[in-house]
């Protein structure tokens, strides 16, 4: 497939997401506000419960964790819930009949949503830093690389669950459980036994980089290789499960059913 055609698909998918984001801006804004209100509750509630000093010690972790958590919404939920939505709208089969294939269309949709989600998450990050008075280093290159690699685990899981949704359609309760898994992984201590959890380890590296302003090239190469390998494995497993589920859906004749 020519690069121009792929670019055309990218523009079409991104254009659709932007159009929907703008048209339903109240809904889009309410998502940011909800996460911000949760942060406020945690921040002020924490201050009241354990005191300023204790909460300040872990504030950078909380801010980075919330930033990643809000981004993981886009990374995970896009492929996972999009399948149910598209099946419900009767458009899933149309996406499947794209010469690019359903995998690529869904992956591009996830990337487009992630790009839009990144903008809203950065807005949230600024709000959190202003509210808490804790300003973290934001080296665009370093943060971008670490965020993308960290989000791959959420994206891979999203693809896998999106595949399951192709067969069973309504699995939104399972999605909720995965959100709690993400929260747990973000709150997990930086011990090696937790490094394989989605979002974990990348969260640790990002927090370190934003707290100390460490640039990417000063992060140990072994850590970056591990993060990259983990991202690739999660994505690969996600694609394999998604493809297997599509094959089963075609065999059972349920690709477009809702």
């Amino acid at each position, binding site marked *: 497939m020519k690069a121009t055609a792929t670019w*055309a698909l990218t*523009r079409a*998918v991104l254009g659709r997401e932007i*159009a929907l984001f703008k048209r339903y801006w109240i809904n889009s804004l309410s998502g940011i506000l909800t996460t911000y209100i949760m942060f406020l509750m945690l921040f002020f509630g924490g201050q009241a419960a354990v005191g300023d000093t204790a909460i300040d010690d872990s504030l950078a972790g909380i801010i980075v964790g919330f930033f990643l958590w809000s981004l993981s919404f886009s990374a995970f939920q896009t492929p996972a819930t999009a399948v149910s939505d598209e099946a419900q709208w009767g458009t899933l089969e*149309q996406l499947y*009949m*794209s*010469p690019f294939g359903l995998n690529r269309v869904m992956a591009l949709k996830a990337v487009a949503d992630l790009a839009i989600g990144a903008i809203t998450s950065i807005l949230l990050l600024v709000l959190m830093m202003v509210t808490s008075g804790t300003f973290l280093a934001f080296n665009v290159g370093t943060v971008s690389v670490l965020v993308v690699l960290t989000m791959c685990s959420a994206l891979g899981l999203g693809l896998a669950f999106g595949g399951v949704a192709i067969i069973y359609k309504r699995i939104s309760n399972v999605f909720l459980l995965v959100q709690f898994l993400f929260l747990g992984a973000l709150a997990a201590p930086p011990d090696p036994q937790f490094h394989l959890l989605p979002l974990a380890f990348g969260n640790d590296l990002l927090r370190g980089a934003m707290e100390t302003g460490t640039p990417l090239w000063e992060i140990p190469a072994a850590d970056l290789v591990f993060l990259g390998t983990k991202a690739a494995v999660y994505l690969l497993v996600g694609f394999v499960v998604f493809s297997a589920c599509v094959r089963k859906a075609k065999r059972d004749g349920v690709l477009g059913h809702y």
Partner: protein
Amino acid sequence: MAQTERKQATGTDDSLLRAAQVRKVYRGSAGEITAVDGISLDVSSGEVVGLLGPNGAGKTTLIKCCLGIVSPTDGEIIVNGADPFDSPRAAYRSVAAMLEGARNVYWRLTVRENLRFFAGLQGRRPTKVDGQCDRVLRRVGLTEKADEVARNLSRGMKQKLSLACVLIRDTPLLFLDEPTLGLDVEAKEDLKDEITRLADEEHRGLVVCSHDMDTIRDVCDRVVIVNDGRVVTRNKMDALLDAFQTSAYRLEFAETGDVRSGLDSFRTEWHGERLDVTVPDNKALYNLMEQLRACDAVVDSIETVQPDLGEIFLEITDETGQTAGRQCERDIFDGDADYTAGVKS
């Protein structure tokens, strides 16, 4: 325009779809269900093929098999030279489908945004297709609604938008499943003209699946009637209508005599003093006349009943009709090498 004339006009007999002996068996806890049982279907460029059948006959499964959305248990499918299962990307450059009518579009996007998105799905830059969008919108009568959000459109307009989204993909082969659903009379006529134009002028191949017999009769070159997963009749539209035209007669009597009880061996239907009778062949017509004479009936007038595709469809797909369909098919296609009977007993 008849199929053969279209082929002459286009100067090609390229096959856009070749589905051979397609079979689909669903296996579940309740056992096996054969949805499609050895159906073959061919579509050439410039040809409109009607696919008819009662609910649950296997039409949708067959279409989805042809589109690569449902994996067939057996059989071969080639879309414009590409296998949709082995080479889906090549196949999907050649085929687009309107599967569930108005449900095929994004209700939260505007009409134009929908068209741009579906053009993009085909690898065409959304901003480069505005001219084509305008042309497609003009053809389906949605120009004034270009910037309207789809969910605000009427049912019929959503249906038109769905068709527009298929057309914008610009593929040589189109599947239209119930394209006239929800359309008013005028819109239906416009759609029929558009289907005919797509075949005649753009030489596209179309498979139209509909319960709207008028549409099927007016736009299709050939019709394939399926029931219980099998082809019951496969015929040129004109030939199908002709076959049933010669077998049904309407008689009016000056005197009926004992005729109401004396025609048990024929399919009859009384409308007051008027009798519609269907005979299997010309020889039987003479037998009918003999019996009328034996019943002391005096025939005032006799005329050929103009066939109605809906009645033909019902006749063919009911149990007794299957026999009629088979007979009809044999009559028409004896010696015609281009078409096979396609009837499995």
